[in-house]
């Protein structure tokens, strides 16, 4: 009996497990939200607009520290712009004045911007001319990646005669002040107080703008914004916007179909076919400011030879690519989108011509491709539609002409790591990428990529192209600039093809049918100030 009594006091295996199970159950019960049992998951009244993004953010909120589309989209909700260019094909020149009330070119090198009064930033600071001055000057610092034209901060001067007037003088840079007209719709206006803190200050920690929605927090993959009651055009109807990164295209579509998402972006052509049949869904199709390019690594052999680059272009049948893209692509024959300033269908744009390809190959010293090293062509899957599919077509077409091409398909992060030019040339020999910017300004593409001071992806250093880029930038008027672009720079680029523009992207967004009043710009940013749901 003594042993039996001891047994009661001892921890045996069964007791040990019993206590373990009890502890587990207690922990598990604490995780269950009792609301689930009493309220429907769908029971929601005034709710924020839920947008799903195909791309992640950078983790640094400084608008001048990235070139990431998803973050541009978030800035579109939060930040204010001097003007906006809707760039609709039917009204390509339309300008909507937001923080600016007028922009006047006084002469070739002087510009006057009048600002709206009574606007405040989300942190309560009033919006004045000093914020515009600080934004232009900060954006033109050499280490910032957003603003790469018209020149660095030492090439122009910004003065503020009063709180609501900004004068821009480009005499020092020797280029036209008109360059700032298009810049006005591209640069989000930041608070001078934030900028004073520099790149290590509040700019990198959160967004602070004058837009319709106030940045609240980053919650995991969700960027949470709420309606800004003090918005100068009146408080938005929806209580907020949640902008979430969801990596899988099917998941995004299912979210739209079941009503969890209100807006999804970057629809694949097959998804468009599915969603077109759904009565609760509507589609937004917009020819975008984005062209998709085959970038040649121009700073290393063999594509440092323009003859070889042009031969490769003549090997590619873009009609086949456009067939693959279907509704997601629009044919174009220039290095910028048709809705950009200065666009023209270039007469000398390289088209599919196997004979010309062979002639150029021979002239470059590689008859039928003999002697060429193995060429790596890098592309990505998961963000841009159909990249793998048309990448395979391009590879086959190039191989047909004797280019020993190997296609390397990567997930987005690995591709992104290999994207940009490096000393000695970027990885591989060709890489697929698109480029977009929320402005009609063509230099946001042309100067960014083809001037030797920037040469982001292709790495080209060509004095002739530099001179042509400077010439159009320095033109005294918009008309003279357009002529310089169309008769000098763009034809020159078509001769040297540092990159081959394959087509213009068509942005396809899926929206719930009860979402009204949402305007989607051709770069994918949205104006939800007047949006209603249901």
């Amino acid at each position, binding site marked *: 009996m003594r042993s039996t009594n001891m047994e009661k006091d001892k921890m*045996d295996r069964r007791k040990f497990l019993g206590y373990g199970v009890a502890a587990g159950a207690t922990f598990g019960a604490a995780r269950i939200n009792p609301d689930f049992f009493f309220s429907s998951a769908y029971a929601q009244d005034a709710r924020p607009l839920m947008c799903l993004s195909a791309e992640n953010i950078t983790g640094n909120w400084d608008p001048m*520290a990235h070139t990431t589309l998803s973050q541009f989209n978030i800035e579109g909700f939060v930040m204010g712009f001097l003007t906006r260019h809707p760039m609709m094909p039917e009204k390509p020149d339309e300008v909507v004045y937001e923080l600016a009330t007028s922009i006047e070119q006084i002469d070739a090198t002087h510009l006057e911007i009048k600002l709206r009064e009574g606007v405040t930033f989300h942190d309560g600071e009033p919006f004045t001319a000093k914020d515009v001055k600080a934004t232009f000057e900060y954006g033109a610092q050499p280490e910032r990646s957003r603003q790469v034209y018209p020149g660095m901060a030492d090439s122009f001067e910004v003065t503020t005669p009063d709180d609501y007037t900004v004068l821009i003088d480009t005499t020092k840079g020797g280029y036209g002040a008109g360059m700032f007209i298009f810049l006005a719709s591209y640069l989000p206006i930041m608070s001078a107080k934030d900028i004073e803190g520099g790149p290590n200050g509040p700019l990198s920690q959160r967004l602070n703008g004058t837009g319709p929605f106030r940045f609240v*927090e980053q919650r995991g993959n969700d960027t949470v914004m709420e309606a800004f009651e003090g918005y100068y055009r009146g408080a938005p109807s929806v209580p907020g916007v949640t902008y979430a*990164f969801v990596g899988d295209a099917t998941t995004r579509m*299912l979210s739209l179909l079941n009503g969890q998402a209100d807006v999804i972006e970057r629809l694949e052509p097959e998804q468009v076919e599915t969603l077109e049949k759904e009565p609760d869904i509507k589609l937004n199709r917009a020819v975008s400011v984005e062209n998709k390019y085959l970038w040649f690594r121009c700073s290393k052999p063999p594509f440092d030879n323009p003859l070889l680059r042009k031969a490769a272009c003549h090997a590619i049948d873009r009609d086949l690519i456009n067939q693959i893209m279907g509704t997601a692509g629009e044919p174009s024959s220039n290095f910028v989108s048709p809705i950009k300033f200065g666009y023209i269908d270039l007469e000398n744009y390289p088209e599919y011509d196997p004979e010309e390809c062979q002639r150029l190959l021979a002239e470059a010293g590689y008859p039928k491709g003999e002697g060429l090293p193995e060429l790596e062509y890098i592309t990505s899957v998961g963000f841009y539609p159909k990249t793998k599919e048309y990448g395979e077509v391009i590879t086959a077409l190039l191989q047909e002409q004797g280019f020993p091409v190997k296609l390397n398909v990567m997930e987005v992060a690995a591709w992104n790591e290999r994207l940009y030019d490096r*000393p000695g040339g970027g990885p591989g020999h060709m890489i697929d990428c698109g480029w977009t910017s929320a402005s009609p300004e063509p230099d946001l593409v042309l100067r960014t990529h083809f001037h030797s001071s920037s040469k982001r992806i292709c790495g080209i250093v060509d004095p002739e192209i530099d001179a042509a880029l400077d010439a159009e930038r320095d033109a005294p008027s918009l008309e003279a600039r357009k002529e310089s672009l169309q008769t000098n720079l763009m034809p020159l680029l078509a001769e040297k093809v540092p990159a081959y523009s394959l087509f213009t992207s068509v942005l396809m967004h899926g929206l719930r049918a009860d979402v009204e009043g949402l305007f989607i710009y051709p770069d994918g940013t949205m104006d939800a100030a007047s949006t209603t749901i249901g």
Partner: protein
Amino acid sequence: MAFVPVALLQTYSEVPMFVVRFLVRRLLQGALIVFLVSALIFTLLRVVPGDPVRLMAGGMAPEALIEKIALEMGLRDPIYQQFGRYIGGVAQGDLGQSFVRPANGAAVGGASFDDNTRAARAEVWDLIAQTAPMTLQLALLAMVFALIVAIPIGVAGGLRPGKWPDRLALYLSSVFISLPNFWLGIVLALLLSVKLNLLPAIGYNGFAYTILPALVLSVEIAPFIIRTLTVSVANVMGQNFIDIAAVRGLTRNQIIFRHALKNSAIPLLNLLGVQFSMLLGGVLVIEFIFDYPGLGRLTINAVMQRDFPLIQGIAIVTAAAFVLINIVVDLCATAIDPRLDY
């Protein structure tokens, strides 16, 4: 009959020592396993292509800056030196900081090369601690669903071997195991969420969001439980003590629930342990499809972003969980059947 209590008393008096010895031995073995897994993952991550520094610093960063950051972080040292430093930190509970994720846990890509927010990078342990309970909740619910479906079918099949319940169990298992989980996930989301509007499907905003992914996972696990139960119940029901029980006057229900099921539980328990551990890995696809913020989605993003410290941390925690689950399973098994000795 007098010898039985004596034997029992001896067994019970040895229990605490047994538990301590068992735990110490198994934990030491587990620590070795976790160490080996860490070494393997650490080495593999460093020999695959892809420079994490370029992802951290951004695509436009000059090569000199890349090298500077890499040197500062010790990423150009020999692998054994890097591993030594890392495992030293792990021993002190420091799994390091994510290469790319900020403290708010967002999935991020490259910023500009002078990105100054590095100081605000998330602790790996915090990221895992935020997501692991979500995965645990998903795995537990999936297990509950699987048991609810599998126990009646499996037991019925085992009680009537060769008859229609047995065949039904076999056919159902075959159908369940043939369904690819990514396909089933999409179909169930379309049916239950889009068409019938019964359940939310994407993301997480409350317990209801766990149900659909758990259902998909349970379909993946149920066939194993059904087959194990069918076989083990059939086996137990064929043994002598079951026949004798009927002679002792026990009803059929008493025989099944008091004797047959209890004796069939050991193989099931071992299976559940393995299945639960597998679930922690199997949630990768499901969490990605349903955008469920658990360890699986965290792992996929970490792999895609070459976030070495996060991948290593997840591997260590998952390996440790695997070891612990198996220890618990073995303890449970000995509690059910004291004859077992581990």
